[in-house]
C-alpha cells in the first residue's frame, strides 16, 4: 500500500507540475449534541447494563472538516474528524477524545476514462434506506448510531468510465478504516463493481472476495416510473464471518458457526414524491441471516442463561422479515428537514418509531433533534435494550 501511495504521490507531483491550476477549498461543520437513553430494567440481553455497558447520557462536541485540492487531472480530498465525548451510566463516567480521517482520497485521471484512486472510501451504494443488502461492508448504513457517520475502507481502486452510461471498478481493500472491529474480515479483500445507467433506470452488480469468507455477490437497481414514483431493490448473497445458530427448540444450546452458511437478503421498495416535495417510501426486507419467529423466541430464552453470547454474536438483524416506512420532507429544501420512520419486525411483531428534525436558526446555524421510540417487550428485537433515546443538538457551518 505504501508503495502504491508513493507511486501515486510521484504521479501527483508530475501532474501538478504540468497542471499548475490548483483549486483549493475547505469547509466544515461543528456539532454539539447531547443524548439521553432510557435503558430497559428487565433486559434479557443486557441485564443491569452489565453486558453492553451502554451510555445513558452523553455529550459530544465534534468538528467535521472537508479539505479539497484539485486540478484537471488530480483530486485530493480529506475529511478529518475531531471529537470529544463524555458518556455516563450507572457505573461511572468515560471521556473519549478522537481525531481521525473518516475519508480521504488521492484520485488521478490517468487516461481517457481511466482513474486510479487510493484512500479511505465509503463503499456503500444502492437506493435502499433501511438497510443496504448489496454492500457487504455497510449493511446497516450506520443506523446503529445515526449521529456517527460511516468511516471508509482503506482502498486502492482502478475505475474505467468510458461513457455516461457505464463504469467498472476493481478495488483492493487493504483493511477496514478507523475504529474497525478486530479481527478485520475485510483485510486484503478484492472488490469488482459494474454500474449501468439508462434513460430512467440504473443498476449495479457487485462481487467481493475476502480471504476467509466465501464470495459476496450483490445487485441494486432503480426505475423512475414517473416524476413522482420510483421503484427499487437490492440483493445480497453472503456468508457471515460468524453465525449464531438458534434452533427453534429452546432446549438446544447456541451453536456458533464460522463462517456461517450462505444466505440471501433482498429488499424491494417504492418511493412516491408528493406535489409539495415530501416523499413516502415503503421498503420490505427479507433477511436470510435472521431468525424465524420460533428461532428468535428460542434465542431470547437461551439469552437468559448466556446474554453475553447472545448479544456478542447476534446476527445483524434478529428477524427474517421487516417493513420500513419513511415519510420525509424535500431533501432539496434549504429551510429545514424532517423525517419520520416506522419499522416493524414482522418476525417478532415489534415496532420502532423514529423521528429526525432539523431547522435553520441562522445562515450558518441549525438545531436538530432525533428521537427513537421502540415499542415492545424485552424479548422483541427493537425493544430488547432501550425504552427510548433522545438526542438534541446544534450544528454550525464553517467558515
Amino acid at each position, binding site marked *: 500500500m505504501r508503495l502504491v501511495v508513493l507511486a501515486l504521490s510521484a504521479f501527483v507531483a508530475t501532474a501538478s507540475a504540468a497542471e499548475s491550476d490548483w483549486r483549493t477549498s475547505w469547509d466544515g461543520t461543528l456539532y454539539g449534541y447531547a443524548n439521553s437513553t432510557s435503558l430497559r430494567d428487565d433486559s434479557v440481553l443486557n441485564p443491569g447494563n452489565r453486558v453492553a455497558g451502554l451510555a445513558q447520557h452523553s455529550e459530544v462536541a465534534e468538528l467535521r472538516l472537508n479539505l479539497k485540492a484539485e486540478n484537471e487531472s488530480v483530486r485530493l480530498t480529506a475529511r478529518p474528524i475531531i471529537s470529544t465525548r463524555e458518556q455516563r451510566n450507572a457505573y461511572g463516567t468515560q471521556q473519549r477524545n478522537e481525531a481521525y480521517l473518516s475519508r480521504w482520497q488521492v484520485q488521478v485521471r490517468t487516461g481517457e*476514462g481511466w482513474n486510479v484512486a487510493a484512500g479511505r472510501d465509503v463503499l456503500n451504494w444502492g437506493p435502499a434506506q433501511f438497510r443496504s443488502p448489496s454492500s457487504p461492508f455497510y449493511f446497516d448504513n450506520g443506523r446503529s448510531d445515526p449521529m456517527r457517520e460511516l468511516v471508509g475502507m482503506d482502498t486502492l481502486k482502478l475505475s474505467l468510465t468510458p461513457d*455516461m452510461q457505464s463504469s467498472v471498478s476493481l478495488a483492493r481493500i487493504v483493511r477496514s478504516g478507523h475504529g474497525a472491529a478486530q479481527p478485520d474480515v475485510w483485510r486484503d479483500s478484492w472488490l469488482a463493481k459494474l*454500474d449501468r445507467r439508462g*434513460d430512467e433506470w440504473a443498476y449495479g452488480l457487485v462481487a467481493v472476495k475476502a480471504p476467509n469468507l466465501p464470495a459476496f455477490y450483490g445487485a441494486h437497481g432503480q426505475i423512475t416510473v414517473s416524476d413522482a414514483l420510483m421503484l427499487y431493490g437490492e440483493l445480497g448473497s453472503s456468508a457471515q464471518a460468524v453465525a449464531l445458530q438458534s434452533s427453534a427448540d429452546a432446549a438446544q444450546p447456541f451453536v456458533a458457526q464460522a463462517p456461517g452458511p450462505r444466505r440471501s437478503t433482498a429488499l424491494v421498495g417504492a418511493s412516491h414524491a408528493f406535489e409539495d*416535495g415530501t416523499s413516502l417510501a415503503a421498503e420490505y426486507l427479507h433477511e436470510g441471516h435472521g431468525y424465524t419467529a420460533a428461532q428468535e423466541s428460542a434465542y431470547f430464552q437461551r439469552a437468559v442463561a448466556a446474554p453475553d453470547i447472545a448479544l456478542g454474536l447476534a446476527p445483524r438483524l434478529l428477524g427474517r422479515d421487516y417493513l420500513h416506512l419513511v415519510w420525509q420532507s*424535500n431533501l432539496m429544501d434549504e429551510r429545514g428537514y424532517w423525517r419520520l420512520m416506522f419499522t416493524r419486525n414482522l418476525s417478532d411483531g415489534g415496532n420502532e418509531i423514529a423521528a429526525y428534525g432539523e431547522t435553520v436558526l441562522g445562515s450558518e446555524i441549525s438545531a436538530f433533534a432525533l428521537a427513537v421510540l421502540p415499542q415492545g417487550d424485552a424479548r422483541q428485537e427493537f425493544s430488547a435494550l432501550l425504552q427510548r433515546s433522545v438526542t438534541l443538538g446544534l450544528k454550525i457551518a464553517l467558515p
Partner: protein
Amino acid sequence: MNKIFCVLILGLLGLGNSAFAAPDAHSILKDSDQARGGGLAGIVWEIRLASRDGGRVDEPQRILVKAVDDSSVAETLEPARFKGSKLLQVERNMWLTRPGLSKPIPISPRQRMSGQASNGDIAATNYAGDYDAQLKGTETLDGEACYVLDLAAKHKRTTYDRIRYWISVKRVVGLKAEFYSVSGKLLKTARFEYANTIEHDGKRIPFISKMVIRDALVDAETTMEFGTVKVKKIAASEFDLGQMQ
C-alpha cells in the same frame, strides 16, 4: 425557345421558393441552444440563485454546474451549511450526495430545487434534442424581431411538457419562454439575457448571463445569474456516482 424560357422562369421561381422558404424551426432552436450550453462538448458555470415567494425571500445560493448534454452535476458552494452537496442528473436519474452521507440518495424528478428553478433550468439546455419545434410566426419583443416557436416534449424526461419560445432573429438567442403543463396551463414565464461570451468553433458567441423565472400561478420569482463560464470537455467520470467523493 419559348419552352426553354418557360423552363428557366419556372426553375428560377423554384430557386426563389427555396431561398425565401420559412426558416427551419429545428435549426433555429439548435443554434439558440448553444447560447444556453446545448450542443457543446461540455460546459462549466457558476450560478447565483435568488428566490422570492410572496414576501418571503429565500437565502441566496451559489452553485457550480458541470454539464454535458443531458447530464449535469450541480455542487452547492453557498450557503455554507450546504457546501459540498451535489445533485447529479444523468438522463432522468437524479441523486443527491452530501459530505458525510452514508450513500447517495436517489431523488425523484418532482423533488426540484427550491424556488422556481427546476433541475433542468440549471443544466445545459438541449431543447433541440428534447422538443419538437414548430415555427408559429414572428413577433417584436422589446423592439427586437423574434421567431416564435412552439415546442412539444419528445420524451418524459423533459422538465416541461410544452414551451412557447421567443428567439431573436438577429442574435439567434432565446429571449423569452412560457412553460406550460400537459393540460395547457401556463406554469412559468422566463426572460433571458446574454451578457457573457464564449468561444466555440473559433467564433465568439453570446452566452446566457441572467434568467428570471416568474411563477404564473403565485407571486414568486427566481433570478439566476450565470458567471465564470468555461467551455471544456468534461470526463464521464465526473458523472459517476462511485467517484464523487
